[in-house]
């Protein structure tokens, strides 16, 4: 079976302490429980969570949606964004199957990145690695006004911004992510074609602003 890999890359630096980090945790839970209602996603979507603070860690390896459980996360440290992109690139290499005559490849991975600040490491190096990988849609989300959307724009065409990093707004973002993953898995199952750009995603809610 062809899997639809979904990577969530989440900022857990010190500035996320308190309401934002709690909102992110809730958001992932809402995302997963919504997706489980969707038979396309339930059968095809695989989820991984990568967090980054002073360094990046994959806290959940690519896992079948039905087995997924969100571990506890804490906010601390700086913003090693480049490290996260580097790790993401490595994980795509090791976890996402390409088609060969002997293997039926996975769908191109969907990537959702969320950060509330500016990178504190050499992020261009990580970006260069990430860009060598083939991905489906990549959405970068700046949570609150502290996020550097100029950096995000260099990662992907699809950049959105949340005015505040409060729980309602972050929840709205994750609901949109879940709708996007649903669209992605439906599209691949029904048509055999990967999701392309922002125009193919469901319209974002009012709390989620598209950065042009």
């Amino acid at each position, binding site marked *: *079976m*062809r899997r639809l890999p979904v990577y969530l890359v989440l900022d857990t630096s010190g500035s996320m302490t308190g309401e934002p980090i709690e909102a992110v945790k809730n958001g992932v*839970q809402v995302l997963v*429980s919504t997706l*489980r*209602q*969707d*038979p*396309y996603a*339930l*059968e*095809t979507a695989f989820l991984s969570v990568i967090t980054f603070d002073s360094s990046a860690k994959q806290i959940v390896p690519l896992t079948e949606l*039905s*087995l*997924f*459980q969100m571990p506890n996360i804490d906010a601390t440290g700086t913003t090693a964004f480049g490290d996260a992109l580097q790790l993401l690139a490595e994980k795509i290499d090791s976890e996402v199957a*390409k*088609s*060969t*005559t*002997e*293997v*039926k*490849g*996975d*769908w*191109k991975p969907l990537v959702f990145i969320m950060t509330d600040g500016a990178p504190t490491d050499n992020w261009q190096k990580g970006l260069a690695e990430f860009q060598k990988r*083939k991905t489906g849609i990549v959405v970068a989300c700046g949570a609150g006004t502290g996020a550097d959307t100029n950096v995000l724009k260099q990662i992907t065409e699809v950049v959105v911004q949340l005015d505040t990093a409060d729980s309602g707004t972050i929840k709205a973002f994750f609901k949109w992510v879940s709708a996007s993953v649903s669209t992605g898995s*439906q*599209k*691949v*199952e*029904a*048509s*055999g*074609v*990967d999701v392309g750009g922002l125009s193919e995603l469901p319209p974002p809610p009012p709390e989620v602003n598209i950065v042009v």
Partner: protein
Amino acid sequence: MSAININFPNGKVNQEYSIELKSVAEQFGIAELNFEGLEDLGLQYDEDEQQITGVPSLAGDHQIVMKYQLKDKQDGQPEFLSKEITLIINPDPKELWKKSIPTPENIAYYKPDSNKEFVKVETKITKKMLGLKQTKEARKDLVAASQRGRSHAIEGKPRDDDFALFFDEASEWYVMTVADGAGSAKYSRKGSEIACQTVIEVCKEQIAAKRAILEKAIRVLSKEQTQENRNAVGKTLYEIVGGAAFKAYKNIDAEVSKRAGENEQEAVAIKDYSTTLLIAICKKFDFGWFIGGFWVGDGGMGIYRKEPEYLKILGEPDGGEYAGQTRFLTMSEIMQAEEIYRRVRFDIVPDFTALILMTDGITDPKFETDANLNRIEKWHQLWRDLEGENEDRLKVDFTDDNEQAADQLLQWLDFWSKGNHDDRTIAILF
């Protein structure tokens, strides 16, 4: 005392669930345990065995409460402490997939959600010796079925696959074709339909016009397998099946212009009619069978013989590095003489069990990879599966002239395969 930290593995509706808590109790020094909220989900906690068992009946993220008493209970502490635990029960995907919305009949290019056909080719009786002696010869029949995929049914979207069958009594040539309209293309259901109809039309006409040359070349080749003789067969076959594929492309292109002319405000292009195409033509000679094919896109087409075992795949599936990358008849780069010629294949065999054409709605679940398409074990498996060796005991009876085979094949197409819910179409000569 360390904080009690336990995670319950996720369960699934209608599937046995169990978790033992003995080790947790020991680890955290728990004297006594019980739970609240399990019964509503169809689960029980067995105090003696210290485990939760049952078959969950309700999907969702459930909060259950664990009440526990510690062995070294401190003064002033309540008798029982409690902890909330999330227990995730997944829905049964089979239940979620059950929803089926009929395709609205008022859409452009409406097509029924399923189709089937049986072409009965009756036993041939030849009279010899002034009609005093006769010989009977059972002849192979054609059967095909096509079913809309669950991924379309759940949204009330139409079937994009198609097929067509033809047997010419006069010349005894068989023609079969299947096509898979691209799910991402809005009118691919029409593309696949035009392709199949055109193939029958052109093959009928071309076989009538060219069969003398083709049959002669085949007879020559059957006696002497030289490159020159192969080329002679290839040339005429190319004119027939390659010609059919090219005309299918032209007819689709004409439909695009027609649609554009009738609906000025709508933007349509040939890629909106994208379809794959598999064609096979064949005939029985006194030395055996000739089978010629043309193939563009994914899916599969093969000559299969159970005993003595034999398998010949009439082409190669067009795949890409990642899933879902294939080629379509409607791509201009495919409609080049050299490309078409490259896709024409033929074979001469003494006999076969089945000549099978199928779309990727069948090859994906039954063969999984392109490499497996070349493995005869996989074809043995498919044939046994068709003959009833499957979970639902659905059987297609391949005895000669069994007209029920079409219905049986259509039912068989409903097989369950996790993550594989595309339109399914299969055509068999047996």
